[in-house]
C-alpha cells in the first residue's frame, strides 16, 4: 500500500506520455492512409518493391545482433498468426478468441512428427496446416451458426479444451513437460540452423500468407465474405451462401495458424501447452483490432507493434503489462478504427466518418466487427 502513490504517479505519467504519442501517431497513420489511397498503381508497385527489398536485407544488416534478428523473426511469426485470424475476424466477421488452439495444433503436429517419427519438416509443415484446417472444419460446422459473443465463448472453450488435452494426454504429448528436442529443418541437405536462415524461412511463409490474403480479399469469395460480415441477411438475399463462406474462412484461418505453429515448433525446438493459452489468443486478437480489422497492411502493422512493445518494455519488468493495458485502452479511444483501417485505405478520412453513420446506433452495433 505504501507504494500506491509512486505506482499511481508512474502510471499517470506513462498514460500521459502514451496519450501524446498515440495522438501524434494517429495523425501520422491518417497521413499514411491518405497517401496510400491516393497513389497510383505504378508508385504502389514501386513502394512495394522497396519494402520487399528492405525486408530482405534487414537481417543481413543486423546479422551480428541476434536479439534484433530473433525479435524480427518473432514479429514475422506473429504477422502470419494475426493475418490468419484476420481472415476469420476481418474478412468473415467471426469473433474467435480461441485462435491459439490452431496454432497449438500446428506446433504439436510438427513436434510429434519430427521428434517421434523423424519425419522431415517439409512434410510436417503442410501436414500441420492440413490437420489444423481439419480441426477448423470440425469446430466450424457446428458452431458458426452461433452469433457474436456466443461464438466467442465457444472458441475460448475450444481453446481451453485443446490445452487441457495437451496437458492430460501425457502418452502422446508428454503433458506439461512439453516436447523438447525438435530438430532443425533440413531441405536437400541444407540445414536451417541459424537465425538468418530462420528469418528467410518465416519471411517466405509471411509472403505466402499475404499473397493468399490479398488474392482472397479481391476475389468473388472475398467480396462474399465481406458481404456476410457487413450484413448476413442481405448477403443471403444476394445469393451468397454465408455458412459455406464462414466455414471456408475458419478453415483457412486455422490452416495458416497451423503453419505458424509449425514454424514456432522448429524455431524454439520445444513446445509446451503453456505457449498456447487463452492470453495468446487474446494477444492475436489485439493485433488484428489494433492494426485495423480486415486491413492487411493494418494487421501487419498491429502484429509488429504489439510484438515489439513488450520487448521494448522488458526492462521495466513489473510495469510492463500495466502499461500494455493502458496502451490498449488508449489506442481504442484515440484510434478506434485501428492504425490503418480498411475504410481509410479505401478513401481517406471522408468515407471513414460517414461509414460510421450506420453503426452509431447505440451499443448494439454489429455483432462481430
Amino acid at each position, binding site marked *: 500500500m505504501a507504494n500506491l502513490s509512486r505506482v499511481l504517479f508512474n502510471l499517470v505519467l506513462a498514460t500521459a506520455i502514451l496519450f501524446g504519442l498515440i495522438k501524434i501517431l494517429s495523425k501520422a497513420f491518417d497521413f499514411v492512409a491518405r497517401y496510400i489511397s491516393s497513389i497510383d498503381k505504378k508508385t504502389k508497385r514501386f513502394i512495394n518493391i522497396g519494402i520487399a527489398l528492405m525486408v530482405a536485407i534487414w537481417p543481413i544488416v543486423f546479422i551480428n545482433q541476434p536479439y534484433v534478428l530473433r525479435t524480427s523473426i518473432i514479429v514475422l511469426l506473429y504477422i502470419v498468426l494475426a493475418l490468419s485470424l484476420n481472415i476469420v475476424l476481418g474478412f468473415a466477421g467471426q469473433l474467435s478468441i480461441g485462435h491459439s488452439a490452431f496454432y497449438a495444433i500446428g506446433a504439436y503436429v510438427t513436434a510429434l512428427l519430427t521428434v517421434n517419427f523423424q519425419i522431415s519438416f517439409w512434410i510436417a509443415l503442410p501436414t500441420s496446416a492440413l490437420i489444423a484446417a481439419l480441426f477448423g472444419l470440425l469446430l466450424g460446422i457446428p458452431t458458426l451458426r452461433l452469433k457474436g459473443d456466443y461464438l466467442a465463448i465457444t472458441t475460448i472453450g475450444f481453446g481451453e479444451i485443446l490445452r487441457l488435452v495437451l496437458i492430460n494426454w501425457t502418452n502422446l504429448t508428454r503433458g506439461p513437460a512439453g516436447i523438447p528436442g525438435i530438430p532443425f529443418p533440413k531441405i536437400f541437405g541444407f540445414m536451417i540452423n541459424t537465425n538468418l536462415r530462420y528469418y528467410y524461412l518465416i519471411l517466405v511463409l509471411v509472403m505466402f500468407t499475404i499473397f493468399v490474403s490479398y488474392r482472397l480479399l479481391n476475389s468473388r469469395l472475398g467480396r462474399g465474405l465481406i458481404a456476410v460480415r457487413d450484413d448476413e441477411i442481405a448477403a443471403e438475399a444476394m445469393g451468397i451462401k454465408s455458412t459455406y463462406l464462414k466455414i471456408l474462412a475458419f478453415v483457412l484461418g486455422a490452416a495458416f495458424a497451423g503453419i505458424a505453429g509449425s514454424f514456432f515448433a522448429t524455431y524454439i525446438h520445444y513446445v509446451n501447452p503453456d505457449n498456447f493459452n487463452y492470453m495468446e489468443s487474446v494477444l492475436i486478437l489485439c493485433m488484428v483490432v489494433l492494426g485495423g480489422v480486415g486491413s492487411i497492411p493494418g494487421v501487419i502493422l498491429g502484429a509488429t507493434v504489439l510484438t515489439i512493445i513488450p520487448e521494448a518494455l522488458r526492462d521495466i519488468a513489473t510495469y510492463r503489462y500495466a502499461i500494455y493495458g493502458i496502451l490498449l485502452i488508449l489506442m481504442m479511444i484515440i484510434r478506434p478504427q485501428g492504425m490503418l483501417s480498411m475504410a481509410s485505405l479505401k478513401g481517406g*478520412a*471522408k468515407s*471513414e*466518418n*460517414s461509414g460510421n453513420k450506420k453503426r452509431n*446506433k447505440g451499443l448494439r452495433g454489429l455483432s462481430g466487427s
Partner: protein
Amino acid sequence: MLHVKELDVYYGGIHALRGISFDIEEGKIVTLIGGNGAGKTTTLRTISGLVTPKEGTIKFKNQNLLKIPSEKIVGQGVVQVPEGRRIFVELNVEENLMMGAYLRRDKQVIDEDLEYVYKIFPRLKERRRQMGGTLSGGEQQMLAIGRAIMSKPRLLMLDEPSMGLAPIIVEEIFECIKYLNDNGLTVLLVEQNANIALQLADVGYVIETGEIAFSGEAKSLLKDDRVRKAYLGEE
C-alpha cells in the same frame, strides 16, 4: 420561441450545415424542406443536442440549448421524432410509449395521453404487447410519433413523419399535428412531401446543401416557381 442562429456543423471533413438561421414562433408550424442530404436531419439533431455545432447559437425560450445535454433538452419540452424511427426493439409497444413519458410524473394525464395515442393509432392498441422490433415499418413509425406525443412536448420536431405510411394514416397524422397545434403545440416539421407540409405549415424554410436557400409564408412558397420545380415535381 426557438432561435437558431448561424449554425455550422461538420461531420469529420464534411461541412453539413453552413450557417443556418431560422426562428420558430410559439404556436406556429414551421417546415423545413429540401432534397436528400440537404441537412434537415442534421439541423434537428443539432437542436436536440445529439450533434455539437462548431459555430452558432440555439436559443429556446431564452435558454441556450447548446449548454445543456440532450436529456435535459428533452426535459425543456423540445422533443423529436427521429429519422429512422429509433424505437426500442426489445420493449413492447406500450413500454415504448411509456418511455416517451419517462420524465413525466402526472400519472393521471399520462394515462389519458396513452388513450389519445391509441385513438389516433388503433393499430398500436391492437399490438400493445408486441415487441417493437417485430412491428412493420409503418407501425414502427406510428409508434415513434406516439412516443413523442407521450412526452407532452412544447416544441415537437418531426423528421419525415409520413415516410412509409399508408395514405390514410398520413392524413391522420397531419390531422393530428393540426389538432395538437390548435391546442398550443409548436411544431417543426421536416418533410419530403413538400406539398402536404407547406399546406399545413405557417412558415417554410428551404434548405439546400446546408444553407437556407430561401424562406417565407408557407402558402406563398407553394406558389413559388423554384419550389414548384424542385420540390413539387412540376415541370
